[in-house]
């Protein structure tokens, strides 16, 4: 259970933000503004929120819960999803709330959230920007998904992976944009998608599917490295 508190300079005057290790996630929600950066290093797919069944876009970091095949931010070409940047911080209406128990917060280590004048410090200002981007980004992404769903452009994708050591992984509950149906769109619908700025994101998603193979390759190689060489056992 998160310990949620509304952030304010009185209660949180001495609170500091420290650098922690990124939470290991295999599927991270992203917004359309992040699509280009995400597609350069990983697949972008849709999944459904368990509570509402609504689609959301996510970047695939691994094939199993908690698996991150992409490594540190530097290895991802600097791509760090907004939802990971904002860890521990939430928007409640227009106010920032924090999960006081999150490991990012400390009384002793890291940068102070508020400066001496009780104004947000550099670190908090960065978080404000992240939360703002995320808030508007989620709305834009919702509109993008609604446009695709209206035109019946979303289709399920079955990913079945076979690894060199015999392991098989089947990913279910993932969806992508149907290129076939995109091609069959009539002129008005295609133009509408283009004018709304949605078309490029649809193509970015379909192109990013190529990254599945690359991720599988990384996973294969990792397994080889972690496996003891045959013959030395026993």
């Amino acid at each position: 259970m998160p310990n949620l508190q509304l952030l304010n300079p009185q209660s949180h005057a001495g609170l500091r933000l420290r650098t922690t290790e990124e939470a290991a996630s295999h599927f991270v929600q992203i917004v359309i503004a992040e699509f280009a950066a995400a597609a350069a290093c990983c697949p972008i797919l849709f999944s459904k929120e368990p509570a509402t069944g609504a689609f959301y876009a996510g970047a695939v970091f691994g094939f199993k819960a908690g698996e991150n095949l992409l490594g540190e931010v530097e290895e991802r070409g600097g791509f760090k999803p907004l939802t990971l940047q904002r860890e521990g911080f939430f928007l409640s209406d227009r106010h920032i709330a924090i999960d006081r128990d999150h490991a990012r917060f400390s009384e002793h280590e890291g940068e102070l959230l508020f400066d001496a004048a009780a104004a947000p410090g550099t670190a908090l200002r960065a978080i404000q920007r992240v939360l703002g981007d995320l808030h508007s980004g989620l709305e834009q992404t919702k509109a993008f998904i609604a446009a695709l769903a209206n035109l019946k452009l979303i289709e399920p994708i079955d990913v079945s992976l076979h690894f060199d050591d015999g392991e098989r992984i089947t990913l279910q509950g993932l969806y992508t944009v149907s290129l076939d149906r995109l091609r069959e769109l009539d002129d008005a619908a295609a133009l509408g998608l283009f004018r709304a700025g949605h078309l490029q994101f649809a193509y970015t998603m379909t192109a990013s599917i190529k990254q599945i193979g690359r991720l599988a390759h990384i996973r294969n190689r990792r397994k080889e490295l972690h496996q003891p060489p045959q013959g030395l056992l026993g």
Partner: protein
Amino acid sequence: MWDGHEDVSQRQVDILFPLLSHRVMVQPVKNIVIVGGGTAGWLTAGVIAAKHRSRIGNGFSVTLVESPTTPIIGVGEGTWPTLRSTLARIGVSETEFFRQCDVAFKQGARFKGWTTGAADDFYYHPLMLPQSFGQVNLVPHWLAREDGRSFCDAVCAQGRICDDGLAPKTIATAEFEAVANYSYHLDAAKFAPFLQAHCCDKLKVRHVLADVRKVNLADNGDIRSLDTPQAGEIEGDLFVDCTGFKALLIGETLGVPFKDCSDVLFCDRALALQLPYPSEATPIACQTISTAQSAGWIWDIGLSTRRGIGHVYSSRHISDDDAERELRTYVGQAGKDLPVRKLAIRSGYRETFWKRNCVAVGLAAGFLEPLEASAIVLVELSAKLIAEQMPACREVMDLIAARFNATTHYRWGRIIDFLKLHYVLTKRKDSAFWKDNVLPETIPDRLKDLLLLWSHQSPWFHDEFDRVEEVFPAASYQYVLYGMGFRTQLEPSALAGDAKNAERAMRENVTQTERLRAGLPRHRDLIRKIIEHGMQAV
């Protein structure tokens, strides 16, 4: 060419054969007229219009004539899983269907008191097939175990899912897709207008509000047109009679007799009432509950907004007053002052369903007690058959009618057999109704033969169930037979060979049951989410 535009070759023919008096005519079937605006009428209109979508507006039309004054009888609120594919084919949204027709999920039926009438007497007829049904018949293996587990629980998860009050899918499951097989409980009074809006807005069905005052026949005995005071004369090439019990076209006009089957199925009256839920948190049953009474049975159907409860009984075995008393006892204090609607029903069907250029669908075709929700499924099957076999011209219509009649007769016969099966397996002796139901002269011959056969081998993929016209699969017979304590003599050969497969299937069922019970949401919670968030199309 049918649309009358001339081409050169036709003109040449006319010049070459100016005096030919005995030309063979071709009379195309282009205008379909459906009479009656209930569930049967609108479902049939939707199925035909969806199938012939590309022809509508190009010389083909579907018209539905509805009386502005005749009230609609809401036939049964239970359905079969076929309705999922029917609705998907028509093109409606399942989310909107839930929102507008007070729909709840149905995962089968729970029969209480049918075998012995004792307090703990119940069994399920679920909609899921037994585990690995295509590979192995689990009946002999279950019989050999005798471990006290009900047949349903030994072979499928659905009885447990229903016990737990869980839904058959999650909010992340796409429209019309299932985790556990399901159909619906729906408000028939809202279903017809829901289909109407879709048929008229999306499928270009012409809706005419008019009373049929007179049916005009052609010289050959076909129906030529309908006279209406509001819309004048309405002509058609094929007429679908969906006028309910009145059977205006097939019965009153064409004189096709009604074949009564009350000698097999005794119930001829029904009392119905609507019971509100005590609160918005009351669990909604995810199965039809059918509770045996002294001379009939009570249906209990949970919609999202209320329960529909009714008593179906035999007036030869109980008075109306006593029947109402039994219904009121079932409902209890909560329904003390609720009004009861009385319906006379007549079990049976038309000797011919499709005669000349008229085909009957719905109550005009026949009626059976709603024990296995067969009314709407029969409408769907008939509408599909008409749509798929739509005769190109009048000249081939009689051939198609003959096929339609053979198939539909077979279906009615099998449904009657299946309904009677619920009665003949009873061990109850506490009233004349139950005793009369097992008298040999009330049991159809085919059912008698099958019961004899089933005492030696269980129904599975044998030849009596391999017809595509089959309404109830062999699995349904298994659930009712072994749910009601029927026993098939075990031949050792029935067990040999696939014991390992059976063992594996039953183990898989245990795993699957636990997985589903852990993963499925509560029935009411899912309906609330569907109304609030909607389901995705994929």
